[in-house]
């Protein structure tokens, strides 16, 4: 059956060009298939073929209630689960006309930024692998575990927390960190930085512990720079590869680090601030190299900014309730329609929701960042060598599940 399909696309075509299929089983592309046409080893055409993980999330939303939609809505971007449910929760809140308590706003910001870092570390690690730099994978995944521990501490699960609910967050952050976690972190700190944690003991207080992890991670980020991002191999493989000019980026409608890597300053957190973002000072990194290197560097600097945001949010977070009192399991949402967006790790994620006043949505439409960045792929994977395909593919930080929904 597969062979038939392949033939119908004129694969195995003889002549000056050769067309073949890359993926869906390929270490470089994951669950995504590209149909590539080459002359020699120069790619002349790339046709993306998404849809291998299409699970019908949008249709599923119509069968489940407002609350039970949350767990499956974070699955499309599981390594950035907070980013994808954020706009959903904002949209439902807007329809209900409620606002979460102050503390919840800060907790949401902390969670969203932690997930952004986790997602970017995943990206950086895999980009390292495809640039021929496996150490970067090990470093990123080693450090990522401590941030994942932090999200687990707040949300209760490693990567899927269902932490955001309309009207606040599910539970408060703990006041004390388990001793084993602190011990483990202390050991790791000594191992990676070659010295003890300043002042000896790592604090068990939640706020101080988060600050300690943030400081540690900031130092590690500085070490990443000479390791990968300033290394000649990496620069040689990424600079000038996959150039997406500013005008093209705007007209193709790409979002997130891809757009900012092309020199456009656009970030939902600044343009349409939500929750606690208006009270926090941070920069939006923009690079105008327009190539894979710029996109990667934007991701790198975003991690630094996220660390800043987490630190400020932890310091400014007030005491108080974390969710609204009137919060039964089956909430009813007034009839109407709403559009909300938030900045997920890969860029702006938007939800259009229509309600007919029952306990479940009438229609949910997701516009995910990977879906929007996919449009750039055929433009970028053209006139490049086959060996550059994984580099360009990963510089877009494309996550197939998020695109296919």
């Amino acid at each position: 059956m597969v062979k038939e399909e392949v033939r119908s696309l004129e694969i195995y075509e003889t002549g000056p060009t050769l067309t073949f299929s890359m993926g869906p089983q390929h270490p470089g592309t994951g669950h995504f298939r590209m149909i590539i046409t080459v002359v020699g080893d120069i790619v002349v055409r790339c046709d993306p073929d998404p849809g291998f993980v299409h699970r019908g999330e949008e249709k599923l939303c119509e069968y489940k209630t407002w609350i039970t939609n949350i767990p499956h809505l974070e699955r499309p971007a599981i390594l950035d689960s907070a980013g994808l449910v954020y706009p959903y929760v904002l949209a439902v809140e807007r329809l209900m006309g409620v606002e979460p308590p102050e503390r919840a706003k800060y907790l949401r910001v902390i969670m969203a930024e932690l997930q952004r870092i986790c997602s970017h570390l995943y990206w950086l690690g895999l980009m390292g692998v495809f640039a021929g730099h496996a150490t970067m994978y090990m470093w990123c995944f080693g450090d990522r575990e401590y941030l994942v521990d932090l999200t687990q501490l707040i949300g209760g699960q490693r990567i899927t927390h269902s932490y955001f609910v309309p009207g606040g967050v599910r539970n408060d952050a703990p006041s004390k960190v388990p001793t084993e976690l602190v011990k483990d972190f202390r050991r790791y700190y000594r191992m990676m930085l070659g010295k003890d944690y300043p002042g000896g003991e790592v604090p068990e207080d939640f706020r101080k512990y988060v600050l300690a992890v943030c400081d540690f991670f900031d130092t590690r980020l500085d070490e990443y720079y000479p390791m990968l991002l300033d290394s000649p191999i990496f620069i040689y493989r990424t600079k000038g590869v996959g150039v997406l000019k500013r005008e093209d980026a705007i007209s193709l409608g790409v979002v997130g680090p891809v757009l900012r890597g092309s020199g456009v300053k656009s970030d939902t957190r600044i343009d349409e601030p939500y929750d606690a973002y208006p009270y926090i000072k941070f920069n939006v990194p923009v690079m105008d190299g327009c190539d894979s290197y710029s996109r990667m560097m934007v991701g790198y600097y975003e991690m630094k900014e996220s660390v800043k945001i987490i630190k400020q949010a932890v310091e400014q977070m007030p005491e108080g309730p974390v969710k609204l009192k009137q919060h039964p399991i089956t909430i009813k949402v007034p009839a109407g329609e709403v559009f909300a967006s938030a900045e997920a790790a890969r860029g702006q994620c938007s939800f259009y929701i229509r309600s007919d006043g029952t306990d479940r949505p009438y229609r949910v439409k997701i516009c995910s960042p990977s879906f929007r960045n996919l449009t750039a792929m055929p433009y970028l994977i053209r006139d490049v060598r086959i060996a550059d395909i994984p580099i360009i593919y990963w510089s877009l930080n494309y996550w197939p599940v998020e695109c296919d929904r």
Partner: protein
Amino acid sequence: MKYVIYKLKNLSLIKYIINWGRICSMWPVHLTTACCSVEFAALSGPRYDPERFGWLAAVGSLRQSDVLLIEGTVTAKMAQRVRLIYDQMPEPKWVIAMGACAISGGLYAKDSYNVIQGIDDIVPVDVYIPGCPPRPETLFQGILMLRDKIMNEVIR
């Protein structure tokens, strides 16, 4: 003759040595089917280090692999590729179903029109690892169970 070879191979010492060799070098196929792959990537990271259990890095081609780890949801479009990949692997081969989706369709079992409700319809499964997604520790348990299973296998 075949019968004699079969008997010889399954003399307990020879059988033990062959199976021991197999469990010490399990090459997984890198087949990412859905979101469970994040935890699989975390498993390959330095905190968990699966190589101490004979689980090699998932970079091998299909023709050198012997374990197929299905990482999550298999949709109708993916199902035929899963089977194709399984068929391309050499014997002996084992299959691990990772996550609720691969076992039964998970979150999408009832309502989704495109999700296969469990991969045992497509390929024979040796070990099921529950969870959504399973933690890396759970994956370890799955790997250890597969090792036990291989250790007791008859050599054909």
